[in-house]
């Protein structure tokens, strides 16, 4: 009674004459501005240039959505699926399902532990954290702080990446705490990377330590800005170094005005370029050699990988970000910042 080749199997039917189509699932739009603001843009450009069909969607931080979108993409007949997982469990479920249906898979930015992706393209998240840790110690040294109290404003407790960032900066700072060069201050996570809550949390850190915080390790620019707003209120901005990540316009402006010490710039354009090249190739059924591999500790296999390096941005090299086209001068050098831009050599 089951007509196997009738009904809704028109896209699902023959496997030989598949038209290349790429599905991309981004994780959310709120933990960081990059996904909707940068990745989507760059990936779309690349796919359009290569003239392949594509479908880019965002799971809004909801892993049920994430799986639903994956189901829909497979239903819609993608031949390559590129995901930024929300957690390894759902990531693995999606990758396995895709693989069983003969869809090529790529892990983008986050490695799915125990997963089955053919390729992995990423920045090293722990390296990001390391840069933040190193950046903070550099700024503290510049300020000549003696045994400074360092407060942590971590990312969302439910976000695995936040844990990776923390591992990174802990690896730099923990030895200094242990050697009593630095003093460990309050250490709290900000639910949902929520900037408003971050401000309250930081204000309470300041109250609790009676104002004795000499450096703030904020996990991204948004949290950094929240800390800066509280510091400003207490007229401490510029005196207490704050870190960040993502090289947002706001973060860069804070660096130019001296309120923020550094941010981490991830050349998303390059990452997107590498990923889209790979995706276009595998969607057409080709294979590519990346030259590098990464070991998946849980699955115990080597995944072919393209790894990019993040870059620390201080006031001196803000201009590099502009030169890269990641932010434009118009966005950055508005109003009062025109002069600061000029001082920082941005033209």
């Amino acid at each position, binding site marked *: 009674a089951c007509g196997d080749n009738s009904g*809704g199997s028109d896209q699902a039917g023959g496997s030989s004459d598949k038209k290349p189509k790429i599905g991309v699932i981004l994780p959310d739009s709120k933990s960081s501005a990059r996904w909707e603001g940068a990745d989507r843009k760059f990936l779309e450009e690349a796919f359009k240039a290569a003239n392949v069909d594509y479908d880019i*969607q*965002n799971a809004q931080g909801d892993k049920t959505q994430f799986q639903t979108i994956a189901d829909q993409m497979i239903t819609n007949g993608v031949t390559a699926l590129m995901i930024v997982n929300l957690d390894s469990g*759902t990531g693995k479920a999606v990758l396995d399902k895709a693989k069983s249906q003969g869809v090529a898979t790529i892990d983008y930015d986050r490695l799915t532990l125990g997963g089955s992706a053919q390729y992995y393209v990423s920045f090293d998240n722990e390296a990001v954290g390391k840069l933040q840790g190193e950046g903070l110690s550099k700024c503290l040294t510049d300020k000549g702080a003696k045994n400074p109290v360092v407060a942590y404003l971590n990312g969302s407790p439910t976000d695995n990446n936040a*844990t990776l960032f923390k591992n990174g900066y802990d690896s730099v700072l923990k030895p200094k705490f242990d050697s009593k060069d630095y003093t460990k201050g309050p250490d709290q996570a900000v639910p949902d990377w929520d900037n408003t809550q971050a401000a309250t949390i930081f204000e309470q850190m300041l109250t609790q330590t009676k104002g004795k915080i000499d450096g703030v390790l904020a996990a991204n620019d948004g949290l950094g800005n929240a800390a800066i707003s509280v510091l400003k209120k207490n007229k401490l901005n510029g005196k207490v170094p704050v870190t960040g990540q993502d090289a947002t316009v706001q973060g860069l402006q804070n660096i130019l005005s001296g309120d923020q010490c550094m941010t981490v710039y991830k050349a998303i354009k390059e990452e997107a370029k590498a990923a889209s090249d790979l995706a276009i190739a595998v969607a057409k059924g080709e294979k590519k050699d990346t030259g590098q591999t990464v070991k998946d500790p849980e699955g115990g296999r080597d995944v072919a990988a393209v790894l990019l390096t993040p870059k620390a941005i201080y006031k001196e090299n803000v201009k590099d970000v502009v030169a890269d086209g990641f932010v434009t001068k118009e966005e950055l050098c508005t109003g009062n910042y025109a002069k600061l831009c000029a001082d920082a050599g941005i033209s």
Partner: protein
Amino acid sequence: MTTTAVQKEGPAAVAPEPSVGSHVRNYWRRVRGGDMGALPAVAGLIVLCTVFAMMRPSFLSAGNFANLFTQGAAVTLIAMGLVFVLLLGEIDLSAGFASGVCAAVLANVVTVLGYPWYVAVLAAIVTGVVIGTVLGFLVAKIGIPSFVVTLAGFLAFQGIVLMLMKEGTNISVRDETLVAIANRNLSPVLGWALLAVAVAGYAAVQLLRHRNRAARGLLTDPLAVVLARIAALAVILGIAVYVLNLERSRNVLVVSLKGVPIVVPIIAVLLIVWTFVLQRTSYGRHIYAVGGNTEAARRAGINVDRIRISVFVICSSMAAVGGIVAASRANSVDPNTGGSNVLLYAVGAAVIGGTSLFGGKGRVLDAVLGGAVVAVIDNGMGLMGYSAGVKYVVTGVVLLLAASVDAFSRRRSAATGTR
């Protein structure tokens, strides 16, 4: 006083079975008068499906139809439990994260501690029962408004999940049986067999009831109408099973994918059980009574506190079931399980289906219909490929659209004065 003789004859006279024609006419009058039962939710669903099918033909594929069930299962299950709480006019904001806690317990027991799946399932459901008892106790005995109690639960359970997950990592669920719940299908033959059982059972209940009432001389629906209902159910279920038994793998050589997803019979059984409890037991009757008029229920000798506690227990247990299904579908549990929009979607599902937030009005079927609306919207939006911002906006607008079908159809009832 002169009329006493006349009245006495009423109940003694044997009620004539009304004709099919008058039955249909009466039904039509009731619908026009605004007494529509499940019609508006179904109408909303049909409108949604038509729109999506027109915009994306792949929406109508067998594969997508099967996906719909597994995608909507967790929210629907949680919504089914919430119906009980809503029937009392209470709310459970913590149901989402309660399902997360139960899922976390499940994952810990099965993966970290390595017990077999049934121990884990039991542990998860017991956790749900305990949670429900505590919430219910605080509401019924201490007298804190349920909004506040469950808001506290919403916060606390979020923390408990985090602690059970060791601050942010996730735990895989690899047990085959557990994974099967949301990811495997019944064999086609088993699907047909279940269908046969379901239809036969329905027919038996309906016919027995008809005979029973007719024998006592009580008013009944015409036999033809009863038979038509049974036939309609058989046809609808038959089509569903047929479509789900179609091959939906993209690559039949690699893997064959067909059959009714395992969650479907789970939801169906729970729907039948809870509907039975609400409609055919005195416990269910008391729930409606307490929701409709607490003071009247108390005066009728109903133990209101016990009813109140029990619905929270049911709600949290169903949340546990939802959590298990969610864990199965995700093959893992992470600190966000049961978070995000799960709660609002679940309450929304119940309300869209027709359950009132003020208590006394609602059915478990509402949760399933509303859950279907939510799942269809999510599913359909997933096929559209909008950017994040646009997608949120369109989802909101579509939800409003589905709800306004319902609102417009009920406006007639307001106009005729029968609300």
